Each structure stands twice: as structure tokens, then as C-alpha cells.
């Protein structure tokens, strides 16, 4: 059985957490299969990463190419394709991220490797890959088995697998020649765009009053802002609130928004989709207020109130004001 | 004996001649049976034209005349008079309308001439069968009934009485004067209403020619112009007016302590069960109101009034009496009812003490009123801000569509008085200012100069905030909503038909216009007449009016009555229906169909017969009569058929 490949995800000179999360899983799968795993590092000036990775992975394949400085699915696919042909890995793992989602499906078609995305569990049974996926907005889990194949591709849901943050092994670093002759013009990276910070930076706040679609409409927002001020915190929100332009993008807590770890995270009218939960579960204390007792948010929250926020917030506002 | 018809064709300048070949028509006329002479002329209605006809009549001793000219509406009377003055019976004339019905509506000369000759042929055929008719004459009662003794009734009654005729003046209330007696000052001259009015009421009381029946109502009217029979019911006042001195001792004595709301004071004050309506009341007598009188309503009372009355005038035995009067003519002057603001709840009338009607304000402002003319709130304090709301119950789909005409001026007059007496801030909420009369616009200007705030927007609603009334409206000129706190709101309530207008209309056989007021015969040319001969209208019962218009209309009604009565007798058109007693089967069908109830049935003979005085000659009976007994003079079957044949052959 051949190696398991881990595609290293890095951006702006940093290896992304998801990569470390994959290590953990890859290792156990490799052990299960009695094989080993390889970190595949594509980029420009990434030697430093290689050393760091080699402490966690028995083997690190590195391809240095200035055209690989920024992620570009076309170039990554070309490069990976040639590596796959050369090493015939049994499984290619990557994050179910902006990176993996842009790459995995096309690569799977090219290589005719069965693809399973957004996995929250992964295992081999009789050489066949089986995955657990969370579907229907997290309401049920599905166990999926993929057809027999010499190779598979899987993308993993961030924030699920325990990260392997340090390691002591001495992995081999193998430099590979880049198969690329120059860049491509069908798809060109131009630049990164940071969401402009106009208000406070929610990642710095000690207390977040975070609102979701459940608040009904923007007319209530002033009330929450006032509450936030009285609590000495600031206001944040979940994705739908941004999609509806009730609050600016910079206020969004979620994988595609900000990841926050405040002392107190007060989630109001937020159902608790994983994209959101992943980005706030690091908070010290999570308090959820939601009408619906079955809302997933209650399984991450420490304290919950099952009621219409309109019955609670106004009173809370009063109580808080005489708190100080 | 062969008939001798004269046919005259008018050119009417070019009106007819341009499209109809008049000479040709003359030639054609001469071919018609019975035509003695046929001529054409430029203007038959002119003196030479008439002379020409008269000359023929006398020299050729014509016995029928056909005029081919304009519509009979124009000149039938002219030529009828010509015939009578030439010694012929005017009903032996027929007009062939070859202008409106021919020359004006056609271009083609040949065809027009053809049609004209047909019309002419028909006319000649018809006139052959026409008979001489003589109008009936009736005597006229030289007396008048005036219903309602407000300013309109009083004005009419005095004018007629001063003209030397007897007037019976019937008033429902126990005093005369109507609404004008309640007013304080009158716009735009601001002279005091009672000062100018009292002399007239006193004069009524004194006038020899006027029989004043207060506390009375008309029950029934029969007969016809010149000879109406009227039943009037005089309701008891329980006071013998011959004895009563109007001293008011009985009022003092009445035990009804807290009294009952005074009608005259519009409920702004209370009165006893026996009371004298107001100091200048005419007649100045006490009356007992049987609703509130404990004795009359519940039968138990010490009757302290009787003991108190030195004159012994109180008489609980008094009963209604019904009296009959014969009059030649009738003037209806029953006035109006003020709009009841309860019907528009948004104004909180009846909910808030200091939301009052215009008439109530008049009583407040009147020196003889409950506050001796001071403008005070219910609690006796002086208002610091007053709002006047226009068009309450007028120009409103939800109340009355009509404009009440007087409210704008009345409101502004009241605003002026309020300003003068209280110095309060005053707001006029209006939609449009209706200052149509002499000196009215000037008055409007004056009031603006006095610093009264005019807000162009109708009051939407009234509510209370922090104990003060608030008027909500929009300043439509700024487009901004307003909520103005005030202490008193005066509703410019409109004028509406009397509650009993329908019954009155039935009694007199007159009709009402869409707005519910009594309908005049013609809105412009006969504004005081009704469609019933001999019955006239005066004042607000015909539509909202200010005092000058009312007085003018009353005088006009009086004049109409005088001109009718001074004739001594009236001619009734002979073009009425007759019923042939030989043919009448007594089926009464005609009685059922007669719109003027002019046909009576004689049980004894078992036949119906037409009252020519009432018959308007509509022909309904003639058309419906199964036994051909009913005939319509001047439109007999024979005449009409002859005309038709003339047209078609």
C-alpha cells in the first residue's frame, strides 16, 4: 500500500491550521493501513515550512517554484498531477477550505480518483475508503463508501480533527523538480484583499454580543449595540446577517469571517451552523439565546436560554446598566 | 262645413329659409285639403308678420291657423294671443316645428324641404280636428299659511301681512325666532342678532294681519292652489296665554331642582319643567314641557307652579286642539337642523366637555346666554387657546356632501369674538375659505389681521394629552403633520335638512333634492316655487343659506304669493283630461295612475271624474283608460292619429 499524501495549505507565509489537523488523521490512517504518509509542500521560498513539517511527517515532498508562490488551482493541479503519477499515493488529503474546494474536484476528475468532500470522519475498510459526512445542515451524518480505486481524494472539515501541533520525528525532506514551465494565463492570481476594518476589531473584544438571522430584522440592531456597550464589549454576527447587509463583513464570525476567542460569547438568534461554531468554539464562555430548543448552538454553548430574545434582552439591558 | 285654414311659413331669417325651400312649401301647402291661404314671411313673430296673419284672419275669416316655424316652446303663446286678439279661439292654432326638428338638423335642401312638407301636412291634418277650448277660472282665498317662524317665516309673514293679507304663522316651538334668535353677532357686520331681530319678532306679535300659532304643527293639506284646506294641531302649553304675564313666578316655584337641558341654550344651560324660553322670547309666556314636568310625566307633583301663579294661568287640563284654515297659498320656512357631531366620533364630541358646536359657542358668546357672553370653559376658566374646525359634517362622504355655506364665515366671526373676548390663541383649521357674500372677503381679511392663525388642513381628530385637548391635522401647505394643544374646540357644524323633512314633504306633496332639502321648481328661474302650484319655499329648508339670502328668498316668496293672490282668480289651462260619464266603467284605474291625485271617484254615481284644478294634463288617464272614457283635451285620439297619418302618407 502506497503513501497517503497530505497537501500542505499555506498562505501569506503561514501554514494553515487545517494542515496540522490533517496530520493527526493521516497518521492514524497510515498506521491502520500499515503504510506511511507524506506532506506535499508546493510553493516559493518554503524551505522554512519544510523543516517544520519534517518534524511531524516522515517524509516531506517539496517543490519550489516562483509560480507556486500563491495558490492557483491550475498550477497546483498540474504539479500534483505529475507527483501523483510518479508516487501513486493511495489517498490525497486536503482541507475542505477555499484551497481544497477549488482544487480537489477538478483533480479528482483528471486523475479519475473518487472524491469525498467535507469529511468529519475517514477510514479504510478492505482497502475501500469510507467517510463520514455531516449533511442536511448538520441534522444527520452520512457514512459514504467510495468505489474501489488505486487512489482517492478527500477534503476534511476544519475544526474537527485534533491538530498535531508538534512532533519530534526527523522526516526526510525530498526536493522535487517543478514540472511547470512558467505560469498560465487562463487563471492569474492578482492580490489579496483584506476586509476593511472600520469599527472595532472583533477578534480583540473580551465580550461579543453576536447576532444571527433569528433577530428578525436590522431594526433591533441598535438595541444589541447598546447592550454590547453596556457589557463593555462589541457586536458581531453570523453569515446571514452579513449577506443581508445588516452588518458589515468585518463583524462576521465564521470560517469565512473572523475566528474569535472572547471571554464571553453571547449568541443571540444564531442557529449554530458549523462554519460559525468552528470560529467561536474557542471562547471561554458561550451563552446562547434561541427560540428553538433544538438549535445546534445549544450543543456548543455552556449556558442556554430558550426564549424569544425580545423577552430577555430588554430586561438584561436594564439589569446590566445597574450592574456597574 | 268646409274648414278655412291659414298656413304661414316663417323663414326665421335664414334659420329655416337657408335649408328649406319656403316658396316651395307655400305651393305645397296650397295643395292641402282645407287650406284657404298659405304665405311665407321672414319673421312671423315680428309685428308686421303678426299683422299679416291678423289681417288674413279678419278678411278671409279663417277658422284654423297653422304656423310652420320654430318650436312651440318659443312662440306658441305669442300666436295664441294673436288668435284671441283677432277674435279666434287660441286653441285652433297649431305649430309645425320646421326649425329645431328640420332645418337645424339637416343640410340637404331637397330632403329638408321634403321633411318640412311632411311636418306641415301633419299639422294641417291635425288642426282640422282641433276644437275651441276655454280655460276654467277659480277664485283664490286671500290668505296665506306660513310654516315656521324663523327669520324666513317671519320675514315672509310680515311682508305679506303688511301687504294687507291674512297670514297664519305656524311655529312648532313655543316661541318664534328660530336659530337666528340663538345667535350672538352676525357676520360680516357684527351687529347683534337680537338687536336687529327682536323688533321683527315683536312686530309679528303685534301685527293685526298675522295669526300666530306657536307650539303647533301642520297635520294635513288638501285642495289646490288658491283653495288649500289646512289642518293645524296646536299642542298644549298648559299655560293660558291670555292670563300669563310672563312674570316667571311659576318658574321659580317649579320643583324640578336640577332641571333639564335647555333646547334654546343648546344644552349649555338647564331649565325647569315650566319655563320662559329666553328673556326676549315672543310670546313672552311661560310654557310647561310635558316630558320633564313631574306631574304630567309621572302624575305626582305638588304642582307648586299653580300655587305660585297669581294670574292662575297654569292649566294642566289643556288638550291638543286641531283647527282648520283655508288659504290661497303656502310658504314653507321650516329651516334646518345643525349637524350632529356625534356621527363623527373622531372629534370626541360628547366625550370632551370643551368640544362644542358653533351654535353652542353662539350661546356662550350671547349676552343673554348662560355665561352672559363670556367665553368660558366648562370649569369656568377662560381658554388660552381655541381651535375652530371647518367643514364638520359638510363636504364629507361620511356625513353630508353639500357645502353648508355659512360655516366658514360663522367660524371666522366666532374666532373674532373669541379673540376679542379672551385674547386666546386662535386656530382656524380649514380646507377652503368660502367667503362668497358681500363684505365677506373683507371680513376674512380683517380676521387674519387680528392675528388668528389659519391652518390649511382639515381637523383629523381630537384627543386629550396631559389634560389638554389636542387637535391633530396636517398643515397641507407645509406638508407637515400638526398636533396643537388647545383648551376649547369649536366644531363648524354644517346645516342639514330637518329630521322630519320627509314627513313635511309628504304633507305638502313637495319633493326633496338629493341633499334632502326641499326641492325648488327650477334651480335658477324658479328658486322659491315648488312643483306644486301655490306652495313656495323660504330659507334653509330649501338649502343652506346665510341671513341675507334667507331674508331675500323669504321676500321673494312673499312677492310670489302676493302676485298670485292679488289676481283674485286663477285660470286653469283647458288642456286637461275629462272623463265621459257615459263611458266610465268606474274601474278606478285612472285614479291609480294619476300622478297628481286629480281624479276623484263618486261612489253615488259609481264613476270617476277629473278635478280640473289639480289636473296637469299629462294624459296618463287617457292612455290607461280601458273604456276610452278618459280623454285628454287638445290631444284627443282623433287629433293625434290625424297628425300621425299626415306624417306617414
Amino acid at each position, binding site marked *: 500500500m502506497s503513501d497517503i499524501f497530505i497537501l500542505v495549505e499555506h498562505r501569506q507565509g503561514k501554514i494553515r491550521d487545517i494542515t496540522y489537523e490533517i496530520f493527526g488523521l493521516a497518521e492514524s490512517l497510515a498506521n491502520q493501513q500499515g503504510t506511511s504518509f507524506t506532506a506535499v509542500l508546493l510553493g516559493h521560498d518554503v524551505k522554512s515550512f519544510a523543516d517544520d513539517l519534517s518534524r511531524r511527517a516522515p517524509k516531506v515532498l517539496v517543490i519550489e517554484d516562483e509560480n507556486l508562490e500563491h495558490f492557483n488551482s491550475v498550477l497546483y493541479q498540474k504539479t500534483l498531477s505529475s507527483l501523483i503519477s510518479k508516487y501513486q499515493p493511495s489517498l490525497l488529503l486536503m482541507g475542505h477550505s477555499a484551497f481544497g474546494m477549488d482544487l480537489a474536484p477538478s483533480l479528482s476528475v483528471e486523475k479519475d480518483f473518487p472524491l469525498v468532500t467535507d469529511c468529519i470522519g475517514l477510514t479504510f475498510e478492505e482497502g475501500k475508503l469510507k467517510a463520514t459526512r455531516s449533511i442536511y445542515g448538520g441534522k444527520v451524518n452520512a457514512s459514504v463508501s467510495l468505489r474501489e480505486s488505486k487512489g482517492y481524494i478527500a477534503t476534511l472539515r476544519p475544526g474537527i480533527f485534533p491538530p498535531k501541533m508538534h512532533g519530534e520525528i526527523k522526516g526526510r525532506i525530498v526536493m522535487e523538480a517543478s514540472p511547470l514551465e512558467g505560469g498560465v494565463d487562463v487563471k492569474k492570481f492578482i492580490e489579496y484583499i483584506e476586509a476593511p476594518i472600520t469599527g472595532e476589531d472583533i477578534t480583540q473584544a473580551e465580550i461579543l454580543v453576536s447576532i444571527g438571522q433569528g433577530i428578525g430584522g436590522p431594526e433591533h440592531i441598535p438595541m444589541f449595540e447598546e447592550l454590547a456597550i453596556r457589557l463593555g464589549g462589541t457586536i458581531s454576527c453570523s453569515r446571514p446577517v452579513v449577506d443581508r447587509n445588516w452588518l458589515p463583513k468585518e463583524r462576521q464570525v465564521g470560517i469565512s469571517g473572523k475566528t474569535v476567542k472572547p471571554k464571553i460569547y453571547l449568541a443571540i438568534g444564531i442557529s449554530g451552523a458549523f462554519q460559525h461554531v468552528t470560529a467561536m468554539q474557542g471562547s471561554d464562555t458561550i451563552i446562547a439565546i434561541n427560540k428553538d430548543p433544538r438549535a445546534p448552538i445549544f450543543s456548543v454553548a455552556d449556558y442556554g436560554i430558550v426564549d424569544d430574545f425580545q423577552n430577555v434582552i430588554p430586561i438584561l439591558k436594564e439589569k446590566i446598566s445597574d450592574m456597574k | 262645413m268646409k274648414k278655412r285654414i291659414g298656413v304661414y311659413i316663417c323663414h326665421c331669417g335664414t334659420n329655416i329659409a337657408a335649408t328649406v325651400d319656403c316658396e316651395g312649401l307655400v305651393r305645397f301647402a296650397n295643395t292641402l285639403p282645407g287650406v284657404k291661404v298659405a304665405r311665407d314671411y321672414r319673421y312671423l313673430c315680428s309685428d308686421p308678420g303678426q299683422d299679416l296673419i291678423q289681417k288674413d284672419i279678419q278678411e278671409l275669416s279663417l277658422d284654423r291657423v297653422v304656423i310652420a316655424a320654430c318650436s312651440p316652446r318659443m312662440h306658441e303663446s305669442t300666436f295664441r294671443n294673436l288668435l284671441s286678439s283677432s277674435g279666434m279661439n287660441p286653441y285652433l292654432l297649431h305649430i309645425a316645428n320646421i326649425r329645431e326638428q328640420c332645418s337645424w338638423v339637416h343640410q340637404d335642401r331637397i330632403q329638408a324641404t321634403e321633411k318640412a312638407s311632411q311636418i306641415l301636412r301633419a299639422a294641417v291634418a291635425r288642426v282640422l280636428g282641433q276644437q275651441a277650448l276655454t280655460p276654467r277660472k277659480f277664485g283664490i282665498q286671500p290668505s296665506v299659511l306660513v310654516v315656521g317662524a324663523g327669520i324666513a317665516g317671519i320675514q315672509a309673514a310680515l311682508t305679506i301681512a303688511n301687504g294687507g293679507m291674512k297670514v297664519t304663522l305656524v311655529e312648532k316651538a313655543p316661541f318664534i325666532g328660530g336659530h337666528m334668535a340663538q345667535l350672538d353677532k352676525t357676520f360680516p357686520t357684527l351687529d347683534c342678532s337680537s338687536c336687529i331681530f327682536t323688533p321683527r319678532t315683536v312686530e309679528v306679535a303685534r301685527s293685526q294681519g298675522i295669526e300666530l300659532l306657536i307650539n303647533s304643527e301642520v297635520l294635513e293639506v288638501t285642495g289646490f292652489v288658491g283653495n288649500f284646506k289646512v289642518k293645524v294641531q296646536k299642542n298644549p302649553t298648559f299655560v293660558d296665554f291670555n292670563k300669563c304675564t310672563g312674570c316667571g313666578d311659576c318658574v321659580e316655584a317649579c320643583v324640578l331642582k336640577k332641571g333639564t337641558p335647555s333646547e334654546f341654550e343648546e344644552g349649555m344651560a338647564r331649565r325647569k319643567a315650566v319655563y320662559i324660553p329666553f328673556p326676549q322670547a315672543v310670546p313672552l309666556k311661560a310654557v310647561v314641557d310635558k316630558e320633564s314636568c313631574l306631574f304630567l310625566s309621572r302624575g305626582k307633583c305638588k304642582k307648586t307652579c299653580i300655587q305660585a301663579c297669581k294670574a292662575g294661568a297654569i292649566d294642566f287640563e289643556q288638550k291638543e286642539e286641531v283647527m282648520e284654515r283655508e288659504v290661497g297659498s303656502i310658504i314653507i320656512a321650516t329651516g334646518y337642523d345643525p349637524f350632529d357631531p356625534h356621527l363623527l366620533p373622531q372629534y370626541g364630541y360628547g366625550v370632551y366637555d370643551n368640544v362644542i358646536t358653533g351654535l353652542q359657542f353662539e350661546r356662550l358668546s350671547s349676552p343673554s346666554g348662560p355665561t352672559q357672553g363670556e367665553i368660558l370653559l366648562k370649569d369656568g376658566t377662560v381658554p388660552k387657546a381655541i381651535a375652530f374646525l371647518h367643514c364638520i359634517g359638510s363636504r364629507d362622504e361620511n356625513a353630508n356632501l353639500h357645502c353648508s355655506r355659512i360655516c366658514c364665515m360663522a367660524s371666522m366671526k366666532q374666532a373674532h369674538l373669541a379673540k376679542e373676548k379672551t385674547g386666546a390663541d386662535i386656530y382656524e383649521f380649514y380646507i377652503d375659505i368660502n367667503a362668497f357674500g358681500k363684505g365677506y372677503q373683507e371680513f376674512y381679511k380683517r380676521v387674519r389681521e387680528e392675528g388668528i392663525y389659519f391652518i390649511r388642513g382639515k381637523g383629523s381628530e381630537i384627543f386629550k394629552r396631559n389634560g389638554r385637548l389636542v387637535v391633530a391635522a396636517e398643515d397641507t401647505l407645509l*406638508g407637515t403633520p400638526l398636533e396643537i394643544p388647545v383648551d376649547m374646540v369649536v366644531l363648524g357644524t354644517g346645516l342639514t335638512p330637518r329630521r322630519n323633512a320627509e314627513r313635511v314633504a309628504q304633507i305638502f306633496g313637495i319633493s326633496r333634492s338629493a341633499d334632502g332639502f326641499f326641492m325648488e321648481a327650477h334651480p335658477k328661474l324658479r328658486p322659491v316655487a315648488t312643483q306644486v302650484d301655490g306652495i313656495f319655499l323660504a330659507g334653509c329648508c330649501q338649502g343652506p343659506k346665510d341671513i341675507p339670502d334667507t331674508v331675500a328668498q323669504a321676500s321673494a316668496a312673499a312677492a310670489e304669493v302676493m302676485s298670485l293672490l292679488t289676481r283674485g282668480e286663477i285660470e286653469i289651462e283647458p288642456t286637461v283630461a275629462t272623463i265621459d260619464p257615459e263611458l266610465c266603467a268606474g274601474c278606478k284605474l285612472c285614479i291609480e295612475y294619476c300622478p297628481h291625485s286629480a281624479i276623484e271617484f263618486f261612489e253615488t254615481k259609481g264613476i270617476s271624474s277629473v278635478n280640473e284644478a289639480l289636473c296637469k294634463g299629462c294624459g296618463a288617464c287617457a292612455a290607461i283608460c280601458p273604456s276610452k272614457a278618459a280623454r285628454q283635451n287638445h290631444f284627443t285620439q282623433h287629433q293625434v292619429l290625424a297628425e300621425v297619418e299626415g306624417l306617414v302618407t
Partner: protein
Amino acid sequence: MKIDPKTFTKDYLLHLCIQCGTCTGGCPVKYRSPLNMRRLVRETYFTDPFPSLSKRAEIWACTTCSTCSLRCPSGVKNVELLMAIRNYLANKGEVPSTIRDALENTLMQGNPWGRFRDRRADWAKALGVKIFGEATSETLFYVGCAPSYDPRVQRVATALVKIFQNAGVDFAILGKKESCCGNEIRRMGEQALFKKLAKDNTILFKKLGIKKIITTSPHCYNAFQNEYPDLNLPVQHYTQVLVHLIETGHLHFSKELGTSVTYHDPCFLGKQNKVFEEPRKILASIPQCEFMEMERSRERSLCCEGGGGRMWAEGGTEGKRNAEIRIREAVSLGAKTLATACPFCLLTFEDSVKTSGLADQIAVKDIAELVDETTK
């Protein structure tokens, strides 16, 4: 179903407007939004504001309380005009996002909140209520959306069920089969969706052999009573039913209320449908219920702003809410309870009682709850 603004003048009698401002002067949101009915009528009649209309938030500020139309001296159909304008915008898809949600939810789940259709009757589970399909009855208790899903208003629906049961009223509810009556949908401008709901509901009611309808909400009452073209079934608001039950001795009070109560006339019950007496009669018959009449009552009742889709409209208004003004009126009157008979009024008042911090001074109740408390 095309909306042609050119016909508005004819359809809503704009040419009769004499610009007196009665509409604007009495408008409950006159200080809360730039909405000016008089000017809107003028603009629609005279100029052509339609291109710019979608940008005007105030179009969504109207509560359709109909005070303006009811008072208009010229019989101009202001509210119908406003609904037509909303319809014009809705057909172009130009509606505020929250209204959009409410309308789409109603199309999908049969209620503006988009709550799961199958849970519509969850509130009634423990109450042993007959449900059409499983059982039948001649009388439909049409619960309505808010009473079915909103925890606060569910208490009203529950109270009514208990009252009916102990008065021996035979009735059934529609359960999952109940869909929005469409009253607010029509007022939010979705004429087509309203027509669909009206058609489907009418067919359903007829199919089930329903002879009589009782509603919790004056809004549903209004829709069934005045706006369902082919329903022609007798419809009663529950207050009318309760008065009858009390007067015919089917409902006996066993407890004393022992507090002072004032009553807020819901626009869709009072002004618009002239049901003023019944609620007062009920309160009068409750033992130890000290009734106090508010300053602005009956025709002059101040709209709570819950109607006309304002439950879902986002803003468009500023300043103090009418509901709060109303609460303060009731408090200053000295009443311990503010009673009403409409789910929307109830919700707006509950909201304001809290936001204005007056919760400890006055309670907001539905008349049904007061009757339930004193009859069990």
C-alpha cells in the same frame, strides 16, 4: 396580473382628493416616518413617482390601520392605493429583505415566519383538540399564524381552546392543513399570493364541510369576512363568540380577577370592522374587573403598528413606538392590565412593555386569557 399605475386614479378615486390632509393628520405613523398619504395621493394622481418609489422606505411604514380611508371626506381609497403601490413594487421584486422573507416563507411553509408547517399544531398537542381529518365539526377554530407559532400568542390560542371546551363548544382546528389567511400578505403587496391563499383556503373549508369560522385574530377575521371572494361562510371573531357564550349562560365565571383593566381597540376589529362593544361586554362581565376606558378608544384608538406587514417590515420608522405611547397611556390611567384582542397588538405591546421598562407596572393580556383565568 399586471399592475398599471395609470389606472390608480380611476381605481382608487384619486381625482376626488381635495387635499384636506385628514389622512395625514390622523396617520399613526405621521411622526414615525416621512409617509404622507395626502402627498402620495397627489403624486400618484398628478406626477409619476413610480420610478423612485422603490427607494422610499416609508411605503413600508403604513400599518394599513385604515384610519385615513375611513375618515377621508372624499372617499379616496388611500390604503388600497398604498397596497397597490406595494403590489407594483412586489411584482418588480423591490421589497425589503425582511418582507421578502415573510412572503417567501408564506409561499413555502404557509406562515410568514417560515416555521415548519408540520409544527403548526404542536401547541395544541396536550389539549385534546379535534383536528379536521381525524375528526369533524361544523365549526372551524381558525387559529392563525402567530397564535400557532409564537410562544406568547400560543397562550392565547390555548386559553381559547380551554374556554370553548368548558363552554361545551363543538369545534375543530385544521392542524397542519391550516395556512396563512393572507390578510397581511395582501397588505404587503402580494396580491397574487393572497388570491392563491384565499382560493386554497376556501376550497379546503368547503371540502371539510365547515359551516362557521371562529378566528383568534381580527386580521384573519377581516380577511375571511371582507376579502375572500367566494367564502360566504359566517365568520366570527372570538370576542363575538365569547359574548354569546356568556349571555346564553354557557360560560360561568368562577374566579374574581381583582384588578383594573383597560382595553385597546385593535384597528382590524374596531375601526375597520366596528366590533367595539363585545370586548367591553366581556370585560364588564368578568367579576372584580375594574374597567377603565383609555383616552383614545374605539374609532380614535391609536394603532399599535403591528398590522399591514409591519411585523416583518424592517424599520422605515423612527422615534417612540406607538405601542409604547399606548402603554404609557394605560399606565398613567392607573390600569394594572392592558387588555387587547389581537395577536399583533399583544406582541407589539409585550415588546414595548419590556423595552420601556414598565413590565412591573402593567401587564399585557389578551381578553381570552383574562376570561380563561376567571372561568376555570
